[in-house]
């Protein structure tokens, strides 16, 4: 009895551990980026078995950009998903909506589980039915009849006495292998310290170049306000001076010289004579203080006489 309780307890602990491990691997991982989670639901059309979020193929990168751009325009994730399904067909969904025979596929695991459990359940029910009247002496006096009524036809008595041994051995093998499997799953669940932050490296390494390309194309199309927003997002992730200066340039073109000047000064604080920063500062100052702008732009020309923008700046200074 004590052994049975101990075994049940161990089984319960292992089951709990297995459930915990499964939950940890499937639960949503903290606050998620909607663009990334949508990309993770889509199959990359140019690759085998990779999601749009994970693929390095250019078309997947373009799809990520399209998703970010549409979300930035205020479309809801469902609308963006519907748009991509219209473009690529429902087969780009990693989990297509199940209908018809495909639904049976989802039922298969449950069916397998039932098929596995049903014999055990039947046996358990039979055993309890048997043990209820077994209180009387009838069961003990007629063991052969109780266990295998069919085998009485032949050399029933010999078979009946030898049958329980292999059946018990078989059951024991089933039980041991089931417990081993559970122990394995539970052990893996307990031994894994934490799910490694797997999407993180991809998201931190990936989005900035994509955002920069997106912002640049927005600039090319003349939508400086939107481009500035994208640069700001990129800057939050990667506070780099060249992104600050790109943002400053976009702001100058969209008429927000104050913020551009502040950004250029930020860069100059760490690199006092950086030509690009001087150029942005000078261009930003032109909106407010023409004289200061002249001084800054001359400093820029002195620093970098061969800069690609130098000729243009000389013309600007000459014209006043």
């Amino acid at each position, binding site marked *: 009895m004590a052994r049975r309780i101990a075994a049940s307890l161990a089984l319960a602990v292992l089951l709990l551990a297995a459930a915990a491990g499964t939950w940890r691997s499937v639960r949503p991982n903290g606050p998620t980026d909607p663009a990334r989670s949508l990309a993770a639901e889509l199959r990359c*059309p*140019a690759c085998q078995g990779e999601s749009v979020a994970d693929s390095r*193929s*250019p*078309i997947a*990168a*373009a*799809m990520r*950009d*399209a998703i970010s*751009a549409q979300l930035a325009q205020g479309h809801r994730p469902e609308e963006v998903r519907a748009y*991509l399904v*219209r*473009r*690529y*067909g*429902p*087969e780009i969904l990693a989990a*297509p909506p199940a209908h018809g*025979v*495909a639904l*049976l*596929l989802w039922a*298969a695991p449950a*069916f*397998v589980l039932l*098929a*596995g459990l049903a*014999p055990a359940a*039947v046996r358990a029910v039979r055993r309890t039915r048997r043990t209820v009247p077994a209180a009387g002496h009838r069961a003990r006096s007629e063991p052969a009849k109780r266990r295998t009524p069919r085998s009485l036809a032949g050399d029933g008595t010999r078979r009946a006495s030898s049958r329980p*041994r*292999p*059946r018990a*051995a*078989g059951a024991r*093998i089933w039980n041991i292998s089931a417990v081993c499997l559970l122990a394995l799953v539970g052990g893996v669940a307990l031994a894994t310290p934490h799910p490694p932050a797997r999407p993180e490296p991809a998201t931190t390494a990936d989005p900035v170049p*994509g955002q920069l*390309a*997106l912002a*640049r*194309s927005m600039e*090319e*199309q003349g939508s400086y306000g939107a481009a500035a927003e994208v640069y700001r997002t990129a800057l939050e992730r990667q506070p780099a001076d060249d992104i600050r200066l790109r943002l400053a340039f976009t702001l100058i073109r969209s008429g927000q010289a104050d913020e551009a000047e502040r950004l250029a000064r930020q860069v100059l604080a760490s690199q006092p004579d950086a030509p690009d920063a001087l150029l942005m500062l000078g261009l930003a100052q032109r909106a407010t203080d023409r004289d200061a702008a002249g001084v800054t732009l001359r400093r820029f020309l002195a620093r970098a006489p061969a800069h690609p923008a130098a000729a243009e700046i000389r013309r600007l200074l000459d014209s006043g």
Partner: protein
Amino acid sequence: LRTSRRPLPGLLRGIRIRWIPLLALLAVAALGLALAAGTSGNGQGAAGGMASRAPGAPAPALARQTLTGDPFDLAALRGQVVLVNIFASWCGPCRNELALLAEAQRRWSARGLHVVGVDVRDSAEAVRALLDETGAGNLTVLPDPTGTTAVDWGARGVPETFLVDRDGRIAHWEPGPLTAQWLDQRVTPLMAP
């Protein structure tokens, strides 16, 4: 449960084969395999039928500046046959088919063919160099630095070609490189007035 009466030899002695569960398991596995094969087959079959590139579907919008800075709008070319080629200078097969496209433009432009290249995630310098190199300067090239236009057309990669008929509908879609034979077979019938 019915079990095999015959004991197995050697190591397996004492273990009886449970036929019913075994057969059930095999049946379920076979069902799963059959369904899996069936659905993946359906997926492939639906690829051409459902998406926007299906023949007869209206061509997606295509309006942006060309590489040379001129405005371009596909809607303004209604009444002409337009061959939209999704390409990039970093893609080998695309480089190889440019000469063929330039030749198609020369051959059929008088009869109303317009060849347009959508240059996906590429730099303007690289594509200009490529056009010079392949003698394809006569093509209209639309830079698509983010690739979102290619996504709008449902392109799965490069190269990929869409043939838009005079009514602005997708007539043919060809993933992968083009051949002179494909152009002959698909473009010639559309050229008939």
